[in-house]
């Protein structure tokens, strides 16, 4: 990996770091609040006790105070309460502490020190928090054992630490797992793309079948690849067939020219045969030219054409004019051409390519329908749908090969004798696709019906999914 952390890992780190920080702050502040509340409670107990002893002192003087303290001599064992009353010189007057603590820390009026108490396990130090008040020169110390509370606070603190630690660990683990997973899937996609780039168009992006965003993306890309593969296959077939299709006439031209050349050299009077060869060659050249021109137009239509070259076209009028153009040629072949295109059928179209479409369908009918047959050219416009229908009562095309006939250079075996490039219907299909239309070949029993449907000008092009 070129960077230490992938972008997903960095993102995860930022998010999870933030979340861990937030959770830790929450735990820590709740610990602090609890601890402070407990200390305040201790202080309150001690202060209340001092207040009650002060009452006793005010009521009965030092004597009364000593009396009360003597009564509470065993309160240490019962309640954890510690008392000590000393005079000016520091000698004990009353209380359950024998002497003033030697080591203590102070905090205002408060003292904290340890009392060593003998218990079953031996001597144990009990922390005591105490307050000192002065009563006419005598000093009174009232404290309480806080060891229980200290232990609780200790536990609370360690629980908080554990909580924070676990949170951070869990977040780090999740982040790592998440970023690894993302990185792995991205890597898989990148690898698949790499092998597609190096020419394996059949390869697809891996799917995990859990319909997550990655699967959505992958299946969209796979759909795109399917279309590209299909398109490439068509191009491949077209290219091969074009090369194959052109080889025939090229070979004839070459053979003819070579024969004319050697014939002319041999008898010196090859004039006539040379001119025959040249004329036949020009005919073949024209055929080659026509094939190339049609291929070019298919390519143009497949490439999507130029949007600026779209214009308002009345398909009905176009059909009438082309019908008129073809009518004499049809009659010459003994065919009847019937045109019915009365109401205007306006669409936004590539005028020349659309004319080529109609022309190709008429050419096909003229070519394949035997004399005596009828060809119908029909244009209808109904509720935003424009249909161009060319039907004949000729031999038709078996349904099984309808789809194949739309591919370039596909011709039926029986048509071998009829001149044709095998590109006519491919161009029709390409032009229909360019106009987001729909092309159907139907059996007219007998005969073939070709139906092209387009969206009329100003209505949505929904015919492709009809």
């Amino acid at each position, binding site marked *: 990996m070129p960077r230490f952390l992938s972008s997903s890992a960095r993102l995860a780190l930022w998010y999870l770091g933030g979340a861990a920080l937030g959770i830790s702050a929450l735990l820590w502040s709740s610990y602090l609040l609890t601890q402070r509340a407990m200390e305040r409670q201790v202080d309150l107990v001690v202060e209340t006790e001092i207040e009650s002893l002060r009452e006793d002192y005010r009521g009965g003087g030092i004597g009364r105070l000593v009396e009360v303290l003597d009564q509470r001599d065993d309160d240490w064992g019962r309640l954890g309460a510690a008392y000590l009353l000393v005079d000016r010189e520091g000698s004990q007057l009353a209380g359950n502490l024998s002497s003033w603590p030697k080591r203590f820390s102070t905090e205002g009026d408060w003292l904290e020190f340890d009392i060593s108490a003998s218990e079953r396990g031996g001597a144990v130090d009990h922390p005591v928090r105490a307050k000192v008040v002065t009563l006419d020169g005598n000093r009174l110390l009232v404290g309480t054992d806080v060891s229980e509370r200290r232990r609780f606070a200790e536990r609370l603190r360690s629980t908080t630490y554990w909580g924070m630690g676990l949170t951070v660990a869990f977040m780090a683990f999740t982040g790592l797992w998440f970023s690894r997973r993302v990185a792995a899937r991205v890597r898989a996609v990148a690898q698949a793309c790499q092998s597609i780039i190096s020419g394996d168009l059949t390869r697809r992006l891996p799917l995990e079948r859990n319909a997550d965003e990655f699967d959505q993306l992958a299946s969209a890309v796979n759909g795109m690849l399917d279309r590209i593969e299909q398109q490439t296959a068509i191009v491949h077939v077209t290219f091969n067939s074009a090369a194959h299709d052109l080889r025939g006439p090229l070979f004839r031209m070459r053979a003819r020219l070579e024969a004319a050349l050697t014939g002319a050299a041999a008898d010196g009077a090859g004039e006539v045969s040379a001119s025959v060869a040249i004329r036949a060659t020009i005919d073949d*050249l024209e055929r080659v*030219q*026509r094939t190339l*021109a049609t291929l*070019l*137009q298919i*390519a*143009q239509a497949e490439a999507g*054409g*130029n949007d600026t*070259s779209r214009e308002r076209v009345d398909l009905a009028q176009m059909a009438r*004019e*082309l019908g*008129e*153009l*073809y009518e*004499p*040629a049809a009659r*010459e072949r003994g065919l009847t051409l019937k045109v019915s295109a009365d109401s205007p059928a306006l669409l936004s179209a*590539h*005028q*020349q*390519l659309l*004319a*080529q479409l109609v*022309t190709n369908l008429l*050419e096909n009918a*003229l070519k394949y329908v035997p004399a005596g047959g009828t060809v119908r050219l029909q244009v209808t416009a109904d509720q935003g749908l424009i249909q161009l229908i060319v039907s004949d009562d000729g031999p038709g095309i078996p349904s099984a090969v309808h789809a194949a006939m739309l591919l370039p250079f596909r011709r039926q075996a029986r048509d071998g004798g009829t*001149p*044709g490039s095998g590109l006519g219907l491919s161009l029709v299909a390409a032009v229909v696709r360019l106009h987001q239309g729909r092309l159907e070949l139907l059996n007219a029993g007998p005969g073939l019906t070709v139906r092209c449907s387009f969206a009329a000008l100003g209505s949505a092009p929904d015919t492709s999914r009809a």
Partner: protein
Amino acid sequence: MQILLVEDDVEAAGHVGNGLREAGYSVQHCADGQAGLDAARAVRFDLLIVDRMLPHVDGLTIVGTLRLENVPTPVLLLSALGTIDDRVEGLRAGGDDYLVKPFAFAELLARVEALLRRAAGDSQHVGVLRVADLEINVMARRVLRAGRTIDLTAKEFQLLEFLVRRAGQVVTRTMLLESVWNLHFDPQTNLIDVHISRLRQAIDREFNPPLLHTIRGVGYSIRDPGQGA
């Protein structure tokens, strides 16, 4: 008539140049776009034949530049780019006609003549066109021959008008498809011949001499035999 031919394919230029010279034109050839543009600016030619794809300065740029400089010389564009969009692009850039390679020399010659006549302004802008005893009233859409009315369909009338406006010139099938039927591609079937023979039936069958002639391998021409085209 002076023609400037700007074409980088030397062999093709040789054929076209020789053919045009044989037809009586004087031809100057440039194999490079910049040289062609300079030549067209320096001398007033009657017609430019410009290939679209040229070294240094391409054909469309030459035409565009000349049109910007208000040079009105007619331009025939030659191109191996044959899609309809390419043609539209060429004509939009200021070309007057567009011919896709490969083409028959006769096709080129017919178009050269048409462009030169058009530039000379001799296409009759009058309401009534005449060839011998054939009379066409463009406004009234009426045709008379030797004083007799001839009935024509709308398309037949358009076809006749196109031919008569170019009386004496050769008009190719492709030119007719483009101008009368607005089809910029060649259908496989030879459709024009049938329409011409129908037109011939109408205007020539019962009259003498015949006016509508077939020029083998090229196209058609209407001419007045009395004038000797």
